[in-house]
């Protein structure tokens, strides 16, 4: 086993920080010029921003849980778990050498939330930011705030939904963003992200382009007006279920209309350099070898879109490390993968064996398998590294404080693929609405290093409460969010969060 596999990311230096910014930093020569974003300079008051960030397969509980002597306000993210020799998976958030600063004081780590829906295993992906199950009709929190609550109306993109590896629509396990129960598609090709998101910046950077943009807007607006009238006419003939389809279509037209309007808006941001084209961007079809580079590019462009105020709401769907996706990372292939399967779903994830509590009268405690914690931790450490990269970008643009980044996951225990004690990490304060620098352990009777504390005294703390709290931080006077199996679980904010 290599040092990295035991202690990924421990020995980062200033040089490695620059490498972490890497080629994409060079490709974004104006990034540092965004330290005070255009909109904040113009308005004086920072608008709130929300990003959801997802990666699959839970966390290695012994490498994530708050340590025995830690408290809510005093906790360590740099510990090395003694039995596995592996570092805390949250270490990237307290790694100034790699990311320019420690984000520990900007975080709220939450341990102990549960999914209270029918979505199990990877179907739980649907619940992470919706609080709803497989037949849910509601929106994910960023879509709700941006579109239903109207907080995204002032930017060209109400939301920006990016991802890596899969752009499948319609199924629970491949999507975290939903608008009124329907999946919102992800852009997974950096070139498409670039062309879609930064077109208005390209247009407004010189007078000739601006004139062309104005003409383009006039043409586009006439089409949008025609299509809106067309939809409204058809709508009169439809039953409610069919009207919902056209409601989605109308919402999409509003987005196009806003993007047309943005063509004429001057911004103090310049477009990044065009990203390289990749021969494959799809998982299970050879795209994995590009995922490291794609992930970095997508994160950087997402951050820059926020900094340029092209959007204030977004989501990022991150692929796992299956099928050679370690290519280009520092993670050694041979030590991370099982010799006969490069798919970590069946090896690393399902092979995870945390320690167990005893169940009275049924079975004794089980010490678990430390090597499985370490392997599982490599995946999560990598994902939190990418989240730290996003935070570093937002911080460099001066918008981390006004933002809230919510990092979620589809399960708690990947060995069982269950959704109890699902990890969340919040970063930024949504403009001072969240008291950060804390680690909330919501189930104090569930000791560190234990699996899910289920059993006779199991308490469900639904993730719906977190989503209610987030909505309230963004000024929404609601006390319920999502559609859990028991409607009572949808109600109430998360105690002690704000």
């Amino acid at each position, binding site marked *: 086993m290599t040092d990295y596999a035991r202690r990924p990311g421990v020995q980062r230096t200033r040089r490695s920080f620059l490498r972490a910014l890497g080629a994409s930093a060079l490709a974004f020569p104006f990034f540092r010029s965004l330290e005070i974003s255009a909109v904040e300079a113009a308005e004086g008051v920072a608008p709130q921003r929300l990003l959801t960030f997802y990666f699959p397969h839970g966390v290695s509980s012994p490498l994530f849980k708050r340590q025995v002597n830690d408290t809510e306000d005093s906790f360590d993210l740099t510990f090395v778990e003694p039995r596995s020799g592996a570092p805390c998976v949250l270490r990237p958030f307290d790694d100034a050498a790699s990311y320019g600063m420690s984000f520990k004081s900007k975080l709220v780590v939450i341990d102990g939330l549960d999914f209270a829906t029918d979505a199990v295993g990877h179907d739980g992906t649907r619940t992470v930011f919706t609080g709803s199950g497989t037949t849910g009709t509601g929106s994910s929190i960023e879509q709700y705030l941006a579109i239903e609550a109207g907080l995204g109306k002032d930017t060209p993109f109400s939301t920006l939904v990016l991802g890596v590896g899969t752009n499948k629509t319609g199924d629970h396990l491949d999507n975290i963003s939903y608008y009124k129960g329907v999946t919102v598609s992800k852009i997974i090709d950096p070139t498409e992200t670039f062309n879609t998101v930064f077109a208005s910046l390209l247009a407004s950077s010189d007078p000739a382009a601006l004139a062309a943009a104005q003409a383009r807007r006039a*043409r586009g607006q006439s089409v949008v007006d025609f299509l809106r009238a067309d939809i409204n006419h058809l709508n009169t003939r439809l039953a409610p279920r069919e009207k919902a389809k056209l409601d989605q279509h109308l919402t999409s037209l509003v987005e196009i209309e806003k993007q047309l309007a943005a063509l004429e808006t001057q911004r103090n941001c310049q477009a990044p350099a065009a990203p390289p084209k990749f021969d494959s961007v799809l998982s299970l079809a050879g795209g994995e070898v590009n995922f490291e580079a794609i992930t970095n590019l997508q994160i950087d462009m997402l951050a820059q879109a926020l900094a340029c105020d092209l959007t204030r709401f977004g989501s990022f769907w991150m692929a796992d490390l299956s099928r050679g996706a370690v290519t280009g990372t520092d993670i050694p292939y041979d030590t991370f993968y099982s010799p*006969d399967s490069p798919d970590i779903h069946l090896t690393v994830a399902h092979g995870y064996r945390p320690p167990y509590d005893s169940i009275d009268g049924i079975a004794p405690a089980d010490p678990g398998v430390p090597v499985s914690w370490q392997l599982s931790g490599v995946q999560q450490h990598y994902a939190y590294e990418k989240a730290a990269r996003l935070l570093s970008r937002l911080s460099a643009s001066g918008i981390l404080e006004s933002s809230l980044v919510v990092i979620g996951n589809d399960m708690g225990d990947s060995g069982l693929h269950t959704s109890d004690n699902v990890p969340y990490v919040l970063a930024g304060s949504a403009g001072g609405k969240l008291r950060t620098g804390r680690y909330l352990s919501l189930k104090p009777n569930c000791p560190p290093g234990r699996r899910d504390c289920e059993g006779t005294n199991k308490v469900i703390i639904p993730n719906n409460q977190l989503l209610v709290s987030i909505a309230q931080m963004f000024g929404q006077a609601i006390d319920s969010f999502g559609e859990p199996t028991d409607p009572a679980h949808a109600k109430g904010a998360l105690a002690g969060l704000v």
Partner: protein
Amino acid sequence: MSRFNLRAQLALLLTCAGATSCSSSAGTRVVESTGGAGSVANSTAGTAGAGSASNTTAALIAPRIRRLTNAEYDASVQALLGTTLALGARFVPDARLYKYGKFDRNEAQIVEPLLARQLQQAAETLATEYVEKKLDQDLPCVMAADAACARQFFEGFLPKAYRRALGGSELDDLLSMVVTPALTRDGFRPAIELGIEAALQSTAFLYHSELGDDASLAGVKTLTNAEIADALGFLITGSPADAELARAADLTSPDAREQHARRLLETPLARSQMHRMVKQWVGIDQVSDTLKSKTKFLNYQPQAFDQESNDFVDEVVFARKGDFRMLMGAAFTVGTSSLADTYGAPQPSVDPGLIDLSSVPRRGIFNLGAFLATNATLELPSPVKRGARFLTQALCIDPGDPNALKLNITLPPSNSSQTTRQRFEAHAQGACLGCHSMIDSVGFTFEHFSAVGAWEANEDDKPELPIDSSTTLSLPSDIPFAGQAVADSSELATLVSQSDAGRRCFARNLARFTSASYGDALEQAFLEEWKRLADSGEDSVQELLVAYVRSNLFVQRGAK
């Protein structure tokens, strides 16, 4: 017993006590109730003629609009504009009909923001290409370049784009809101371009309408003639109605629909559509994207399996006018001499051509390379994937979800001294037994087939690792061959091909594809139709489609 097994068994007991999931031998049936003929109430007087006894208001689909699939979008712009571009293939993927078959025809499709942008960009590209390359030859008045000529163009173009006659002010709306301002602002050609862009993003173009004439929401409606033509074109050919169908004025008549259906079934487009339907049913439509170990399988070419699947469907459904029995149990395939080598079969007399499989244990589409390679890992066969997929798609049996049961799932460790089957036989104990006795009893029958579908006597060519594909089928008791011993997947496929259970499951899947939806009432009604045909030995795939097209299910919509 390990701690994990105890916990898992506890969960299993709770689950099984409360519901359906596991028994020692059976999983959950997927919406495969035993209602059968006569189980659907409220029969209406048939207006559609032959074979309509099954049609009931309860089974009717509600009035709806259905967004075109990406493939249908491409076919539509190609038919309308004469382009060869296939921009829809790069749109966000279609949301498949979830769980009950992975069909792209799905009534739940919508136009969400990313797709709307892609549609906008595609419309711009297509309109530009058309005006540059085709406008001059299609529009005699083009030199006039005035408002009258623009009107003339859209008088001809818009009904084709909307696939129906124009209503009310539709033409004037497009002209006044889009074309005329552009004519003033940008000139003639840009105005034509913009009008085309708008038409390509309109609801009439993007959605197939199944609303009928009646504007009220009550009662049973019959689709309009244009809607029936549209439905027939998209169902049989994956494309809008061709000129002959679009001209037909009597499509409320079952005989007229049958006549057009049979005519369309003779076209190349119908073959492509049939490939799509069968491959999506079996779950092999993405075999071309599968990857295999480059060290173990140097020359793996999944496109060859895709081509084989298409050719096999052509041979069964069109050349031989075959039925489910043939799809499931055929002792032949179509391919190259290289494929015959892979299968250990005699060479085809022409290359590529018909390959006789009667001397080798390989029967039907579930034993061809596409299914076997899709349901395998990079290097090894996957008895679980093969077994589970066969159960859901060939027998409409849901094998259960281990996550729902909170079971540990552990890939058996690599062990070069064991066969795949021996490694997976760990399932035969503890909490896994309940469901895997069924899954594995099916999956192990495929053991002789490698991860790329080649037949192997021994695992990895090691004589000390002889492969055993014989099992005793652990299936729900209402499956007639439950408990029967089979030597391999060839015997299994033959049994299923001759069974009502397999034929009914296929009919259900056909109902889902044709209706772009799922629901027990409609599927039961379809099964009733199937039974009538099956009893008379006329249930070929083509005849099933024709029967559906003739039926009230196809042309009537219920009030829901």
